């Protein structure tokens, strides 16, 4: 009983340390081992072991750099909410694999709700968007309905999870 209790406590404590590490990393993913160790008050070796475990167990999947499409000359960002014709089998997979081939698509999300799939796409300007929409989007298979919304401004982004 005591042993189980200790085990439980250790597990809970370790989890707290992991969360602490992830909170710091989330704020500054480029943080080096020594700085991170100091921030969470552990030895660099222990932090490095924790990080290895977080990676091995798939909790920490890695990191990526955000691309600013506006700075690259893509002024238009459109969100396409798509309903698929589900009467045909395999419509989801066929649609998704075709959507992946459209270069202007930056994100694909699938949902449970009124909308089946959402595509984020970028274009240089409105005529360019028109071209992508006509030539590449409307030709995607099994679309039953599309609604387009344009992003006016991003108000909040990348604030991190309340871990």
């Amino acid at each position, binding site marked *: 009983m005591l042993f189980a209790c200790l085990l439980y406590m250790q597990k809970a404590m370790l989890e707290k340390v992991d*969360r602490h590490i*992830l909170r710091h*990393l*989330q704020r500054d*993913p*480029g943080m080096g081992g020594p700085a991170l160790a100091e921030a969470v008050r552990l030895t660099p070796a222990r932090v490095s072991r924790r990080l290895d475990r977080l990676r091995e*167990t*798939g*909790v*920490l*999947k*890695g*990191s*990526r*750099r*955000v*691309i*600013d*499409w506006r*700075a*690259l000359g*893509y002024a238009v960002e459109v*969100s396409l*909410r798509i309903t698929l014709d589900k009467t045909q089998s395999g419509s989801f997979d066929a649609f998704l694999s075709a959507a*992946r081939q459209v*270069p*202007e*698509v*930056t*994100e*694909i*999300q*699938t*949902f*449970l*709700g*009124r*909308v089946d799939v*959402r595509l984020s796409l*970028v274009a240089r300007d409105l005529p360019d968007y028109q071209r992508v929409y006509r030539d590449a989007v409307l030709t995607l298979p099994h679309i039953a309905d599309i*609604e*387009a*919304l*344009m*992003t*006016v*401004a*991003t*108000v*909040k*982004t*990348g*604030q*991190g*999870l*309340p*871990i």
Partner: protein
Amino acid sequence: MILDDTDRRLLRLLATDADMPTTQIARRLGLSQPATWRRIRRLEQTGILGDRVLDLDLAAVGFGVTVFLGVKLATKGRVSLEDFERAVGAIPEVQTVEHMLGLYDYRLRVVARDLADFERVLRRRIMALPGVGNVEANVLLSEERLTGPL
């Protein structure tokens, strides 16, 4: 700024894996390490290469549910957009806020521990926002990021 093929390959690499050491990136691109650094700095200075963000398994860190909310404001004119934006931005579970043109006014990305927790966030936080009208919720099932037109 005009990008060459090497810049585009560099952006593709960094947009998918920012943990890769510069030595390895340099080798992949067939560049020297200083030349790679110079290119990265130039892309940062022009604002094209943005922040580095951590990629976490949401379920593993305790957020089993991600919901996208389309929010329509009910009393446009009476409540300022600034008031709404300030209030919604302060909710920790709200990860992103985008002002949209179309069917609804704002798109929010909300994380929650589970559906019960999501209901709490929706009722106590979102529905209490100034000027909030219709809210449409779609629960995220899967998500993939592509490198886009690079």
